[in-house]
């Protein structure tokens, strides 16, 4: 077996030669002007606005926020998330969605087999583990945010539900760009769910949508062909490369990176210098399209 050995390299400081403006660390005074509103990452003391996290100051009219580089997911109503069931409780599932508190999926906010809306009976409660058990992955939408910051999810659409075969990636939530849709059937032959919570799901594209009666709880466990697995593995490497180089993730950026990466073998993409070149080409392409 051939083994690839590289010398350790000093991590590059990025292409940005000048540091971004408005960089603050906790305790720094942002402004002593009282005409501003206090946003996330700031606190008021002695009529002065201080930063409470290390990051970049962002100002929208009179609102001042400090955006940290790394953070847990702050849920908003309507976000698409990918999560993992951690606990089956009475009438509810607990879901890990990379937020501060576990999210909750109520039995009343899922589509049950049978399709039509009906009362949730005691049998349904007993059957809960058959529908979703611990460790299962789901895609869902944020229905509401509780007062303590925990999220309530729902899967009341056929888009959402249990996820079958595929790869889960975890990236920083701030890297996922908010778009109209987060479900993408890419032309390269795979589907991607870019969860707003930084969990990304790559799976083979399902050709014909299965009948609505299953309620999204049936997993397709047929073997995935080797070609499809190759596409999925390449997408995984591309998305991780984008995240590593701090580029926003959305359908176009993922697709461009995928296209530029095709001249390399899948395993070659794991080498940092190859990935850097691919990302650089994809970035140039994005900038060209953007103007």
């Amino acid at each position, binding site marked *: 077996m051939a083994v690839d050995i590289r010398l350790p390299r000093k991590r590059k400081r990025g292409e940005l030669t000048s540091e971004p403006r408005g960089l603050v660390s906790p305790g720094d005074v942002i402004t002593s002007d009282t005409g501003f509103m206090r946003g996330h990452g700031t606190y008021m003391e002695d009529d002065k606005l*201080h930063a409470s*996290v*290390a990051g970049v100051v962002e100002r929208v009219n009179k609102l001042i926020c400090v955006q940290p*580089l790394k953070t847990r997911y702050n849920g908003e109503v309507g976000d698409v998330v990918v999560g993992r069931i951690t606990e089956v409780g009475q009438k509810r599932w607990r879901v890990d969605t990379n937020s501060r*508190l*576990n999210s909750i999926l109520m039995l009343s906010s899922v589509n049950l087999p049978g399709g039509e809306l009906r009362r949730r009976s005691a049998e349904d409660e007993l059957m809960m583990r058959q529908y979703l058990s611990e460790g299962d992955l789901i895609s869902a939408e944020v229905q509401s945010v509780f007062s303590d910051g925990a999220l309530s999810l729902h899967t009341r659409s056929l888009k959402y539900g249990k996820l079958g075969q595929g790869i889960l990636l975890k990236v920083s939530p701030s890297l996922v760009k908010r778009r109209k849709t987060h479900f993408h059937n890419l032309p390269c032959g795979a589907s991607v769910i870019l969860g707003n919570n930084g969990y990304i799901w790559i799976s083979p594209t399902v050709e014909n949508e299965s009948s609505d009666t299953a309620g999204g709880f049936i997993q397709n466990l047929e073997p995935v062909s080797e070609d499809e697995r190759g596409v999925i593995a390449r997408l995984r490497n591309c998305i991780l490369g984008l995240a590593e180089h701090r580029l926003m993730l959305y359908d176009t950026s993922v697709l461009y990176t995928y296209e530029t990466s095709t001249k390399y073998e899948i395993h070659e993409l794991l080498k940092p210098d190859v990935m850097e070149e691919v990302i650089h080409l994809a970035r140039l392409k994005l900038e060209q399209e953007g103007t």
Partner: protein
Amino acid sequence: MTSQRADCGNLELRSQSCEQNLLSRPDGSATYCQGDTSVIVAVYGPAEVKQSKEFLDKATLEVIFKPKVGIPGCSEKFQERLIRNTCETIVLTALHPRSSINIIIQVMHNAGSLLSCCVNSTCMALLDAGLPMSCLVAAVTCSLSCDGDIILDPTSQQEKEAKAILTFVFESRDNEIITSNTHGIYSIKQYYSCVEACRKYGFVSCQSPLGTTNTVEQ
């Protein structure tokens, strides 16, 4: 960073280095080296908390101190307590009610001034985790030798020969003391001169936190 003063003895710190975000699983992590003393800290949170430890108005802050060998004993529990109290004063725990913040400190090597290294490392890990804090902290240890000389950032050999060991934690906004831990015999006058000697370096460390975000040799 070197300076010599005839009246106060050896006033210089050992070389320091820090690296953040080196562990993938925790929310924040940092390693901090002061000379040969080296500590690695992981911060998990804010996350779900057990109901028995839950506070309705603030986050539960837990510190776990892991020595290099053996199981934690009384002195480790005392260090945990000290670091927890220090963290509770700077972390804005009221913003995350009913959640837990776990700080795990693993000693890699102890070559003197361990407590200050732990506090500095914890502060960098909290910064990496992006937890809201009212300010940053910097800790400096000094020792008083038998003839009254102040040695900053003592090695374990110097700590052994010392008459007293004092550790101070300063905050970055007004450079005030928030934690003071002393061990040994000293006069009030000596205490104040130690505070002033340490404050000078606490101030320097606090003023350039963003410069140390990746690996920086001081």
